């Protein structure tokens, strides 16, 4: 059940967008397709929705073979990055569109629309046009419109990509809560690892048309299957022979058994954290190591630019040796 994708391939001319994709997306969960732009994740989502057709392979939605079905018949809710609002219709009409297509009785449409607008907190805006709404409100309207048809799956293509940072943060928390309420199988595409880690039950990392790894946010973050997954899920730096997250590095001001020693050559303060660059003394590994410490740690250690430090991985840090 859920969504079963088997052996999907897709080419655009010479460009290989997707290659042998096999993926099961479980029912009722919030799954994120994560990867860099142009990696094929949006194409996969559009193939699930029927907006794009695969060159080969099959798609099954909730046990139903959807491979040959047009988008109209898949009963899929789709939310676009740029809202795709029907500009000449009021918020209410937008949400009612799918129900009217399905020829639902008028009073049922009215009741359902009111219910959905309450769910997305837009009940006082029902008679406005999309142009009179903010970006966040428009995207919530689009979400209500997609949910109105009681879709078997809800697909969101970079849903918060066009919004500013603060609204984006609010909306993804809200999406998480909404999903806990509605429980519809949801797949969303994002290139923002923070968004994916925060919102999703499970992550599918896609790069260059292939699936790199599938797992829970913790799995992927702590046990990345490849250097790509490790580096995509957060900042990484090279310490000695291994890759490690910059905040997983321990350091002292006095010589001891360390992996690397060097001088602090760069100092960038961003709010509570300080990003440092340490240039190793070891001429075999001359590339600077990125380290992140909190302001408090830096004060306690009396760090300053030019100081000599000794670095080693923190106890319990996950690292991928390459």
């Amino acid at each position: 059940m859920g969504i079963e994708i088997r052996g999907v391939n897709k080419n655009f001319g010479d460009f290989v967008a997707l290659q042998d994709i096999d993926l099961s997306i479980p029912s009722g969960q919030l799954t994120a397709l994560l990867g860099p732009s142009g990696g094929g994740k949006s194409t996969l989502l559009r193939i699930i929705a029927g907006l794009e057709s695969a060159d080969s392979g099959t798609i099954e939605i909730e046990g139903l073979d959807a491979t040959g079905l047009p988008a109209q018949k898949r009963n899929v809710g789709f939310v676009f990055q740029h809202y795709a609002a029907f500009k000449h219709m009021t918020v209410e009409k937008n949400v009612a569109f799918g129900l009217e297509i399905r020829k639902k009785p008028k009073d049922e449409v009215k009741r359902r629309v009111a219910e959905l607008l309450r769910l997305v907190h837009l009940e006082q805006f029902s008679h406005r046009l999309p142009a009179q709404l903010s970006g966040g409100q428009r995207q919530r309207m689009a979400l209500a419109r997609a949910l109105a048809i009681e879709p078997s799956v809800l697909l969101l293509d970079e849903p918060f990509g066009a919004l500013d940072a603060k609204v984006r943060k609010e909306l993804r928390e809200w999406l998480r809560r909404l999903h806990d309420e509605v429980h519809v199988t949801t797949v969303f595409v994002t290139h923002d690892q923070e968004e994916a880690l925060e919102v999703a039950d499970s992550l599918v990392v896609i790069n260059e048309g292939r699936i790199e790894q599938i797992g829970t946010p913790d799995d992927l973050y702590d046990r990345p299957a490849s250097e790509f997954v490790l580096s995509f899920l957060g900042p990484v730096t090279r310490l000695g022979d291994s890759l490690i997250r910059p905040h997983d590095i321990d350091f002292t001001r006095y010589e001891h058994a360390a992996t690397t020693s060097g001088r602090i050559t760069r100092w960038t303060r961003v709010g509570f954290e300080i990003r440092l660059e340490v240039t190793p003394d070891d001429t075999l590994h001359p590339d600077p190591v990125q380290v992140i410490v909190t302001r408090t740690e830096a004060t306690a250690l009396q760090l300053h630019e030019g100081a000599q430090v000794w670095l080693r991985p923190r106890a319990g840090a996950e690292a991928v040796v390459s």
Partner: protein
Amino acid sequence: MTVDAPSLAPGAARRRRARSSGGTSLTRSSGLGLGVALTWFSLLVLIPLSLVVIQSIDGGWETFRQTLTNPQTAAALRLTVTQALIVTAINVVMGTLIAWVLVRDDFPGKRVLEVVIDIPFALPTIVAGLVLLSLYGPDSPLGVNVANTERSVFLALLFVTLPFVVRTVQPVLMELDRDVEEAAASLGAGRFTTLRRIILPSLAPAITAGAALSFARGISEYGSLVLLSGNLPLKTEVASVRILTYIENGNDAAAASVATILLLVALAAIVLLQVISSWVARRG
């Protein structure tokens, strides 16, 4: 702040009211801009138009009535308006279709077609008339002779008004989000429903504008149809030819009467099209 206009003193109260109700007040530069625009518009449009209207009723209502009840003039007006209406209706459909093809489809020779569409714009109308005469006249290489019939008027109008709807719809269609159509599809709407409820309402203002231009050009056309139509009284004579005849005969008041009627018809058409357009847009 506001423009210095002593003659508008009674308007001061109105201005204040406008400001308090959130209306705009003019800055110096926008006041100057509005002034220039209004003067320009008055010189070129308002004053000449009022003069025509005044001239037409100058000779008293009697001249006006007589001109209109003159069977030859009435026939010319009827012919002009019906042909312009038919041609506009065809343009609405064909123009939208051509614009659609030009925007949405890729085919060899598309760039050429883009240029060809504009030829009726670029061609001096009398040259268009010559082209039409040689193509559909007595010596037609196609064997189609419509000279001296109503159809010649129809054909000439169709030729010169072709670009209007195409050129007004095309840019709007290009701006139209494909996302929106996909959203409609994923909500279950078929091609036809999407066209009727999503695409057409977005295009309606552009189609209306094109139709208005096409109709206005249609009722005023002269150059392209005089050669082919033969200007036969009661049969193929159009209103603009009629005006010219009146002027040549020194009957300026009658000419102005016909002009006023054309003006009213054009106004009525524009208003009607606006109403239709907003109705389609609202209904979507």
